[in-house]
């Protein structure tokens, strides 16, 4: 177990190194620092200011290590800063990125955690229900509805719901955010509903397949033969075994709760990390975008490790060796 975790972490670290290298190639060698500086400062600034800005933001060094320059170059600097979580300041507005991330995490989590939990609470029982009624018209209708739901672009969901629920029915504010607990639910209700609805089709279909796969197994037949009822079979035998494939989908998603949702946050004006990312994209803020990709990758690697470890929890056959 211990050895496994260490090895897994080690591999994770190698992957993170790879990710960082890719980021370096993308953001430093393909885009020149001068462009970034001019974009941030405007076109009229004298070259001296650009140089100063590049020094402030750490864009002033040679790109790659060269003899005698092994440490003092952007590649090494990039690794050093990313690995020590010293993300520096935004290219666009000079704010410290780490602080922005810290501020954005709260709203993001406020959106994603209920969204995540609610998705599971809605999709899994519905999928169990559909699987329970397999080969009946509920099942068929469920599958068709799921495919229908999957075929709608998320943009349409958001636009439609904002229009209907927000503008016509006056149920919730159309958009916005306030961390005051009194009102936060008001703002989050609609994006969460849309998020759940958007994922529901795919989730139900996936979970249903898993449940059906499990309910065709021999041990389910054994359970029936010893007199188990269908509900008990579904909840005790099928569900617990389905956890193994489900975990891959679920646990990996957990770290990404931190990074929020790009679309929901920016459409609904929730100042989370997703919105920050979209701002960075639209404002060509490379340092923020770079950091977000890095954090996303880091979280993914963590999620992978968590998934692997969680297998050991639900599946006694898995010994982490």
């Amino acid at each position, binding site marked *: 177990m211990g050895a496994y975790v260490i090895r897994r972490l080690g*591999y994770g670290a*190698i*992957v*993170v190194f*790879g*990710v960082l290298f*890719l980021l370096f190639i*993308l*953001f430093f060698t*393909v*885009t020149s620092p001068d462009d970034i500086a001019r974009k941030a400062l405007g076109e009229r600034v004298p070259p001296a200011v650009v140089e100063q800005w590049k020094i402030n933001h750490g864009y002033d060094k040679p790109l790659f290590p060269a003899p005698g320059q092994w440490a003092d170059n952007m590649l090494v600097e990039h690794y050093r800063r990313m690995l020590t979580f010293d993300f520096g300041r935004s290219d666009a507005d000079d704010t410290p990125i780490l602080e922005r991330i810290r501020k954005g995490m709260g709203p993001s989590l406020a959106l994603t955690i209920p969204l995540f939990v609610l998705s599971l609470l809605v999709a899994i029982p519905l999928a169990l229900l559909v699987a329970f009624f397999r080969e009946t018209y509920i099942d068929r209708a469920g599958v068709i509805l799921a*495919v*229908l739901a*999957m*075929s*709608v*672009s*998320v*943009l*349409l969901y958001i*636009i439609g719901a904002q*229009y209907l629920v927000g*503008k016509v029915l006056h149920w919730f504010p159309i958009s916005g955010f306030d961390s005051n607990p009194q009102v936060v639910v008001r703002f989050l209700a609609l994006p969460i509903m849309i998020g759940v609805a958007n994922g529901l089709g795919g989730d139900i279909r996936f979970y249903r397949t898993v449940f059906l796969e499990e309910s065709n197994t021999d041990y389910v037949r054994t359970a029936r033969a010893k007199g188990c009822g269908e509900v008990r079979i579904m909840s005790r035998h099928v569900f617990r075994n389905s956890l193994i494939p489900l975990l891959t989908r679920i646990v990996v998603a957990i770290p*990404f709760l931190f*990074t929020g949702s*790009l*679309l929901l946050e920016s459409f609904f004006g929730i100042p989370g990390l997703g919105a920050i*990312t*979209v701002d960075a*994209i*639209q404002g*060509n803020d490379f340092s923020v*975008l*770079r950091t*977000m*990709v890095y954090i*996303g*990758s880091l979280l*993914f*690697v963590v999620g*992978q490790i968590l998934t692997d470890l969680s297998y050991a929890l639900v599946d006694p056959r898995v010994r982490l060796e």
Partner: protein
Amino acid sequence: MESHLISNGIVLVMLFGTAATIWAVRRSRLWSSAFVSLWHRRRLALLVTAVYVGVALLDSVAWVGGDSLGGDTVSLHEARSVIDRVFGGSQEKSYSAPLATTEFYGGRGLRYPGGHWLGTDMIGRDVFYLTLKGARVALLIGGLTSLIAIPLALLFGISAGYFGGRIDDVVFFLMTTLASMPGLLLLIALIMVMGKSTLAVCVALAVTGWVGFCRVSRGETLKLRELEFVSAARALGVSEFQILTRHILPNLMHLVIITFVLMFSGLVLSEAILSWLGIGVDGSWGQMIDQARNELSRDPIVWWNIAASGAALFGLILAVNFVGDALRDVLDPRTVKDEK
């Protein structure tokens, strides 16, 4: 070379390819029976898909010449597709509702009263025409990306799965690294860095999209490699290359097709999101939805633009999803075995 000639050439190649595929499918009982049962299960979805493909093809065959369109002199010298010639050219000045005779705002008369089945957009272009044009873009995004991603994934997946060892380590590392990066962000970063063009979007989508299928094909190859017919082939002195091409690859073909279909819908949907971020492909439905987004809040509401593009997108994805579902059932060797 002129781009329309390339496009015509591609259409020609595609038609030949389709003919060849049909011929091959008809020869192979395995595939033809799969197709027959697919046809029985999803006749409507297949027909709908065929209509989309047909429109896209009609929009890809283009030539120079003919009359000018509504005073647009440049168009005389440009290659215009069949769709352009039949449906294009009825330009108005601004919005008009479906089949309206006057402009939506202000009520000025139209140049083609009642001639716009789905109305016109902000600068007076016929929405039906734009919707038809979107089919080609959607298929281009889905098709081109798959054409890049799937062979790449197969190459890496098969060699990793079959040869194992160092090759597997390298491919696996590459896969994990790419998979670790948040897909959409990587996609955006790639497009921002490569510049915005259809090819750039497709390449970026392919770079982020090949990993999933690579993993699948690697896993399947690992499984196939251990199967006895591969051992038998090796015992018969068949070379590694021939084992790969004659045994492993054909046994992955069903996955290729299923992946192609399922990937397709995902790609077209992600393009819509890219369009929202302003880095989508010109003329796509995603762009139309994005343009039309604000129109929903217009008062009186302009609904036909988003309705047309949304419905076109929905229709294609739905048909493709249904076909994909059925394909999965039809081609999955497990179900094939059950039928036996």
